[in-house]
């Protein structure tokens, strides 16, 4: 039996945990994963290797996770319900465990129609599966781990010991039901929760108040999601179009000011905005970590893994604890 996950140990130690995100490429070459793994290594406790996010074909999460693991970065493999039925899911979980993976995040997955929000062709004509949903998937992982049994009831010779994660969109509609949503995932067996990116801290705070009332924060480790903004445009897009995300106007305003400070210089504008984005991310990290019941942050520097080091350092979360 391999050692338990690093992420689990950080959380159990009571120190704020930091997870990051690593998007695999649309390529049969794993070099990029290796490169990104090096950018993240040491600046997070584990990094999510996304599972064909935005419903676009990329190196699979399991393969990507193994590549990262080989580089010394602890991966959180992701498992969407979109692409596999319960047979494939469980088979992959067994294989992933055999390959040394210890963290698994269960998610529904973007619908195949999403196709990178229309920026790529994707496979909108694909048949989706959704044999089980997230909550059920969490339950399957727990049953495999704790009972050594497959969903269908057959025994496993060796049970996969995953640290089970699930996602949560605290600001999604219907707002009041999102608490129930989390409650169900926790009841199903989620050990940790990574939330959708938080910009409106007040909404999140209010949701967390409900969560703590129910004592859910004691039963699972909630890592608040922080998306690192890169431009005013991105913030505006997230506010208007990304489900469950609302961005306070003041933040958008700050980014616009940063852009305007550069005048007509496009390169500078990018620079200024990125700097401001990192500052915003750091502030958000601090605000999130102050919320009672929060056990860490999930920092998503989407396609900008290089920013992680600076953010984590500025946030005072560096160095990351090491367990031997």
């Amino acid at each position: 039996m391999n050692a338990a996950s690093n992420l689990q140990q950080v959380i159990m130690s009571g120190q704020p945990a930091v997870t990051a995100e690593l998007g695999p490429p649309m390529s049969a070459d794993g070099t990029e994963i290796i490169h990104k793994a090096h950018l993240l290594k040491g600046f997070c406790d584990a990094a999510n290797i996304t599972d064909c996010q935005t419903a676009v074909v990329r190196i699979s999460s399991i393969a990507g996770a193994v590549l990262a693991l080989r580089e010394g970065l602890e991966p959180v493999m992701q498992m969407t319900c979109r692409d596999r039925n319960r047979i494939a899911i469980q088979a992959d979980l067994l294989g992933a465990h055999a390959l040394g993976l210890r963290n698994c995040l269960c998610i529904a997955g973007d619908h195949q129609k999403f196709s990178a929000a229309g920026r790529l062709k994707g496979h909108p004509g694909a048949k989706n599966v959704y044999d089980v949903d997230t909550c059920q998937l969490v339950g399957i992982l727990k049953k495999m781990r704790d009972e050594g049994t497959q969903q269908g009831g057959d025994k496993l010779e060796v049970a996969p010991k995953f640290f089970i994660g699930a996602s949560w969109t605290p600001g999604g509609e219907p707002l009041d039901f999102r608490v129930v949503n989390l409650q169900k995932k926790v009841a199903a067996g989620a050990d940790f929760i990574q939330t959708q990116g938080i910009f409106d801290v007040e909404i999140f705070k209010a949701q967390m108040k409900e969560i703590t009332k129910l004592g859910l924060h004691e039963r699972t480790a909630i890592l608040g999601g922080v998306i690192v903004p890169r431009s005013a445009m991105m913030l505006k897009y997230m506010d208007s179009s990304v489900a469950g995300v609302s961005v306070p106007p003041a933040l958008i305003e700050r980014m616009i000011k940063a852009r305007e400070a550069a005048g007509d210089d496009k390169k500078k504008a990018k620079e200024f905005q990125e700097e401001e984005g990192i500052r915003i991310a750091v502030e958000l990290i601090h605000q999130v970590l102050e919320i009672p019941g929060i056990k860490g942050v999930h920092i998503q520097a989407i396609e900008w893994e290089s920013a992680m080091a600076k953010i984590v350092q500025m946030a005072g979360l560096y160095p990351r604890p090491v367990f031997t």
Partner: protein
Amino acid sequence: MIVGTQKPLDEIWDMVKDFKDTLVLGCNTCVAVCHAGGDKEAETISSLLKIRAQMENRDLTVSHSAIMRQCEPEYFEPVMQELRQHDLVLSTACGVGVNYLSARIGNIPVYPAVNTSFYGGVQEAGLFVELCAGCGNCIINLTGGICPIARCAKTLMNGPCGGTNKGKCEISDEVDCAWFLIVERMKQLGTLEKLSEIQPPRNWSTARDGGPRKISIEHLRQYEKQEQEKSELPGGNA
């Protein structure tokens, strides 16, 4: 009812253009209600094919007819001989009708003119919406009468995913989020707490995943059998 939509004319044309004599056969039940394949649409298709034949200078005979339902044998009885006079029957029935007729007509092909889409209701005149997926194991008592199998793009059973946006589904802002509706409906019914219960993985074997399905109503079948036996006795109406 079953809701379908007409195939594009080009696709139909490719199916029929090499047949000398095509009959467009409408079905006056579900597909008529959804204005895809009733008598009227059968005639419309027939009319379009005639014009197309004219324009392409092809000597085709196209006619049209319709029966009440293409999924029950009795409705075919008066017309089956007539149908066999043609080279091709282009059925505007749902897929059921096409399969059904195809198996009975003999040596004539039966082609589909309609894409069968879903089981739906008429939300308003001219607007048909999918409300049931025929999964064979109804649970909408648990979901406020709103089917998450048919109406959630991900057939989620335990609540919404993160894709709900302003009450709409992530696949389109024209599609309602079923779970948003379910939650609102359960609130209205005062039964929201029911949703806290975790629904375990479903048994999909009652759905199409379990293979082609059949329903046998034994008491009716017994009667049919008796009648058949009677008619086979000497003096029966064999």
